[in-house]
């Protein structure tokens, strides 16, 4: 069982010619890598606050509701952000994706307070893009998590190349912080596992965002760790399943 907890709604240019388009093509790609379930985020909607992008993701995922898990996004600076979160979740979104760098906010600005409270009440996780200064550092996101201890807060890239050391520190500091180490260098990932364990690690590839090879590469990174089978299973699917259980409670 593999859950890819970080994929983006692919533009048509993403698909290899031998695959179909739309959800069928995306699932065919997942099948080639043994990926059973994907959390799906918008791509265009990170640059454009039109709430219809959330509906597009939901419709895409409706093609295979047991395999494609829709996430929504909102622009925290806009006055209707919390309302849009509620609307999208009532319509079927299972989590929130935020990209502070593209969407132009800091994770600890005042406008984030109401969103955090709403997430806690809804009981859904939030995935942040991270690793890109000035607005997406792991410790900024960890500070948001500390303010909202009931919300599972997920670093979407594990600090990328430059800030993975900061991601390790943030994970050691804050219990409700989780991580998809999709941008952590291989040697950094080894240290992340050694220092934090696999209990808050999720597999995620960033597939859909540019290159169909992402899943191949990211799975190779995980398998090169040569984890015990039970730890690898926790990382590849167990933790993501846990976060999707409505009664999981807070850690």
């Amino acid at each position, binding site marked *: 069982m593999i859950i890819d907890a970080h994929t983006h709604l692919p533009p048509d240019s993403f698909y290899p010619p031998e695959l179909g388009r739309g959800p069928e093509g995306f699932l065919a790609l997942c099948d080639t890598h043994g990926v059973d379930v994907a959390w799906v985020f918008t791509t265009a909607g990170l640059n454009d606050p039109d709430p219809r992008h959330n509906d597009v993701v939901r419709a895409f995922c409706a093609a295979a509701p047991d395999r494609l898990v829709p996430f929504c996004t909102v622009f925290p600076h806009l006055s209707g952000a919390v309302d849009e979160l509620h609307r999208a979740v009532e319509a079927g979104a299972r989590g929130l994706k935020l990209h502070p760098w593209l969407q132009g906010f800091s994770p600890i600005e005042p406008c984030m307070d109401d969103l955090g409270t709403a997430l806690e009440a809804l009981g859904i996780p939030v995935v942040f893009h991270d*690793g*890109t*200064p000035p607005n997406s550092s792991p410790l900024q996101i960890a500070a948001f998590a500390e303010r909202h201890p009931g919300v599972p807060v997920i670093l979407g890239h594990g600090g*990328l*190349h*430059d800030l993975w*050391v900061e991601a390790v520190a943030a994970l050691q500091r804050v219990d409700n912080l989780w991580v998809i180490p999709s*941008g952590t*260098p*291989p*040697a*950094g990932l080894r*240290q992340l596992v050694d220092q934090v364990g696999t209990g808050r690690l999720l597999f995620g590839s960033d597939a859909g965002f*540019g*290159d*169909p*090879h*992402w899943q*191949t*590469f990211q799975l*190779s*990174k995980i398998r*090169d760790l040569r984890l015990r089978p039970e730890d690898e299973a926790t990382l590849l699917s167990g933790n993501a399943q846990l976060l999707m259980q409505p009664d999981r409670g807070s850690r």
Partner: protein
Amino acid sequence: MTDVIDGHRHLGRGVDTVDDLDHLLADMDAHGVARTVLIPTDREIAVDNRAGNDAMLAAATTHPDRLLPMATVNPWFGAQAVAELRRAVYAGAVGLKLHPALQGFVLCHPMVHPLIAECQTLGVPVYVHTGTPPYAQPLQLVELARTFPKVTFVMGHAGSTDLKADAIPAAHLAANVVVETSWSLPARLRQLVETYGAHRVMFGSDAPLSSLGLELANHRAADLSAPDAAEVFGGTAQRVFGGGASS
């Protein structure tokens, strides 16, 4: 596969990574890499330049046909840095590596110019880590390359990841810049080859922070044409670093 040259790999003990010569050579053998450009690690890049340069030179002496030593000096050492660069190149170093984020300077600041002028005199290329704002940006490298058009510059990691977009327009701003491709996935590598031309693109692993095996797998999945692959996996590095008999 042609004679693969790894254009960028660190040797030694860093704060987060470690690699020794025996492992490095075994890793090269396991993945069919003929030659590797050696770079010092972490504190040797930041402050202990001479120790790092001597370690690279000594390692290369053991396998001169397979290992190409790069020197690094921190521009903050001023005239002392220029002297150390000259010493290392006379001892066999094939170029200068700069890491503006780790060494703490703005890449296009005039304080760097004496070092680049020395590289021009010595006839060696300058490899620069890029991709870590605010100090290691592709367009800062372009600015430096335009100031020294006779020097060949290598854009390390091609701006990955934060500034990878900037590496594309940079191709047309300075013809004396080539890119090193560690951290590239297949579509990105194809984009760099299309933009720069394969003769301005070189493979690098950035091991041991990255993994030679994973990087080669990513690069080979790009399915480059045979002539392009020959450039990326060896030809470009051969010309830039001048290692080997045919240079």
